[in-house]
């Protein structure tokens, strides 16, 4: 079943008198439980697509569906509720609240939904229960990113959107983070849409969508995705 669908989606930014085309008629879909990697160089429009998918940006033209809901027609309030109920974000810069501990950062997201997952349980999933009372500044980059994953997971979202989740991590740490994501995807059948410019990561995806100049230039399915540990960059 399709969880996310883009139909001829355009995004144009106006910068002074210049119009910048970030997306030029994107058509794509993501199925429930898939682990999809969007691959493309900087400025190819992949983050813009992710923002629109997550309801934190709106397309200039075209339609975006989450299951049967046309989120591209949502107003700001509806988009907020959509994000709250259905989407989990993982950012490149982790974006944890520095004054809150790991547990409190996760709790922050848990308080938004009616039936959140147990905070300690999700910290256990990302392997950080023992670090629950530590502040972000007391944690490594990899640990911070795993807290961010736990924060995304605790709301029980249907769709987890990750923007260059390993972009700020070293090779080994990056692989450990990807391992956590892949495990959650498989064990909980949770959908992941991950954007990156790192072509190696594409090897672990079920499906890869290639972006260039705001367009989807290629789509390919991995018949045998690699395990994160098998990746090398």
């Amino acid at each position, binding site marked *: 079943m399709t969880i996310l669908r883009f139909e001829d989606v355009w995004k144009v930014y106006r910068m002074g008198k210049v119009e910048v085309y970030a997306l030029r008629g994107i058509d794509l879909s993501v199925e429930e439980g898939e682990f999809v990697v969007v691959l493309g160089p900087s400025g190819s429009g992949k983050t813009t697509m992710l923002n629109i998918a997550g309801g934190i940006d709106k397309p200039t033209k075209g339609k975006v569906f989450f299951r049967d809901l046309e989120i591209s027609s949502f107003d*700001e309030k509806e988009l907020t509720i959509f994000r709250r109920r259905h989407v989990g974000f993982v950012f490149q810069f982790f974006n944890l*609240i520095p004054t*809150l501990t790991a547990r409190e950062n996760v709790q922050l997201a848990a308080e938004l939904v009616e039936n959140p997952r147990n905070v300690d349980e999700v910290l256990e999933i990302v392997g950080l229960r023992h670090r629950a009372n530590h502040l972000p500044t007391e944690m490594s980059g990899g640990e911070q990113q795993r807290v961010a994953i736990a924060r995304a997971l605790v709301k029980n979202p249907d769709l987890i959107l990750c923007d260059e989740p390993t972009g700020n991590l070293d090779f080994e740490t990056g692989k450990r983070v990807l391992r956590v994501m892949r495990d959650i995807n498989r064990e909980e059948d949770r959908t992941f849409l991950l954007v990156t410019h790192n072509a190696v990561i594409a090897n672990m995806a079920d499906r890869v969508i290639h972006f260039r100049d705001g367009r989807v230039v290629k789509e390919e399915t991995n018949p045998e995705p690699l395990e994160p540990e098998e990746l090398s960059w």
Partner: protein
Amino acid sequence: MRTLLIKAIRDLKAQKWQFLAVSFLVFLGVALFSGLYSSYLNIEATYKKFYTQTNFEDLGVEFNPAPKDLLKMVKAIPGVKAVVGRLTAYATMEIEGREIRLKLVSIPEENSKVNSLFIVEGVYPKHNEVLILKKFADLNGISVGQVLHVRLNGKIYDLRVSGSAYSPEYILISERTNVLASPKDMGVLFVPYNMMEEMTGLKGKITEVHVKIYDEDRADEILNKVKSEFRLYGLKSFYKREGQPSYKLLKMDLEGFKHIAFMFPSMLLLIAVLAVYILLSRIVIEQTGIIAVLRALGYSKRTVIFHFLTYSILIGLIGTSLGVLAGYYISAGMTSSYVDVLNVPYHVTEIYSNVLLASAIAGLLAPLIAGIFTTKRIAEIEPAIAMRGFKIEYKVLGLDRLLRRFSILTRLAIRNIFRNPKRTLYTLFGVVMGVVLIATSLAFVDSVDEMLHIQFDKVQTFDYKVECSNPTDIKRLVGVEEAYPLVETWILLERNGIAKSSVLIGLPTGQDLFNIYDLNGRKHHPPPKGIILPKFIAENLSIAKGEEIYAFIEIGKVRLKVYDIVDQPLIPACYASLEGLERLGFRPNEVIVKGGDENKLKRFGAVVSMKKLRENIVEMMSMMSEFFAFSVLFGASLAFAEIFNTTTINILERRREIATLRMLGYTVKEIAISILVETFTIGLVGLLLGFPLAILTLKGFEMTYKSEMFNMPFVMYPRTIVVTVVVIVLTLLASLIPGIRFVAKMEIDKVTKEVTG
């Protein structure tokens, strides 16, 4: 949203000093408003209670001795509720070698129904007994039962003090001829009427009438009728309640107090609004990424905005709760010390719920308004920012050509001033306000010194004033350099139904002991013909130089030509030449003397030593030194709180670039100098703008306190400028210390990690 609250509290903890600094501003604003305004209401209530309790007069008329029987005519005027007639005279008494001026006021057999005396000790006096004004008795150590040796018209009377009392007429001792009378050197004795008749030799006569009426709206009409009863005998002065000297000065002072009670705290709360705005703006800018994440997680705009408003609410709650509490103690202390120097038996201390409510609302609203200003910025933050990271952008003015000759660090310091113009303006505002507060407070001391200088070094340069008419014998005394006779009397000027009473001084020509000066320091000579009028009176009576005016003087009604109009400092008076007054029939009643021995002069009459008078005024003014010290401290702490706030915010905000500078090899000292250059540039501009504003404020005070009785010159001496500059510079330095210590202790590796992470 418990976790958001935890975040808010942790944020507050992480920046506790900045939050405390802004909360302190709110605290000061609330404490001063509730404290000062409650004090104002307390003092007003105290006066009101005392005036009601003692049946304070609605109108009064002073005249040359007139038959006491005329009181029946006054009583019969429709609308008159009660009336008392008085016989008054001026006498002297010696206390510990000091010649004290006394006003003797007759009282009826029983406590009067107008201007009743509030007896605090002893009993109502019988023959040969007097009641003494309480404050005067206390200040001079006079106790009940003591016998006073009072000299009147060359004769000494032994009067036993039967008790001490307060009078609504003398809450503040103020005489038209002696506005600067200190409560220690000007006494009032209340003497039974028949005793006064004996002492003055004015049997069956009165010189004053004080009236209580039913309907205040009819005051003018009744006053005219009372005046007409005594016009025949020569009016000396008349007034409605608002014009009664003590009442008028108290009212003027209270109005000034009210303005200060409103202006100071309002200014502080305005500064608090700006301070909270600067702090919250910085937090919002720094937490833009966090805001975006919260929004991306699914927090609504409203929730995020409310979260940031909790900072304002917490600042407001801390500042307001402590401020209201402190306000109560300020009010109690202020009311007590204010009333303590006056002749009032008690003071009212109440808690005014409307003042508390208004200060609480103001204290809570001020930071909230600042918070609301920042919400626009919060609302504009798009959650997508979280994806791409965030950079703070500053405006940099094109000063390159100008700055080229400076070092890189100096250029950076000067550019920083223009980086955030709003913040720079706020800091500037803080420095300017600090300068105004400190400079005006110190200028009050300057003004008192200037006042003493004008009065004793320019206008009255003589050493003694002796109550006698002939200087011939005085001149023969050893040590006496000069002695001149003069006339000092009362005058009532009337034109178009408006009357102004003043002092008329007749000066001999060719002497330098008693001079006429204008506000610009220009000396004027006694007029060969006519009189010199004070500007305030001339303006009030709409009279111009060269015109003629009717005046009531001791010898009756005369027509006088206005020779000149002079804006006189301090105690404005009407001046004529001695010869001119002698032609009208006056005889000199005082002799001014340079040099000589006070004790030897005493045999010619009562002696007033100008040196002692000056010392008493200085002593009286020193009682206000605490207030000035408080104002200076207040101004300095205000400037400190603001500069500390912005400097630490600036440093925290720029910690990344400061860390980079340190990584590059710049020393803490070099960076500290750069911060000093930035802060001191703002400080210098603040000083340059602050002083003219302080002078304008002083001019405002000058206008407020100008009356026909008093014309206080407000000046600023160079010493005030120097002290203000030093205090501001020290404040700037002190407020920079925490920031510079932060730079010194900065863990460069951690801050660098923030840059990359």
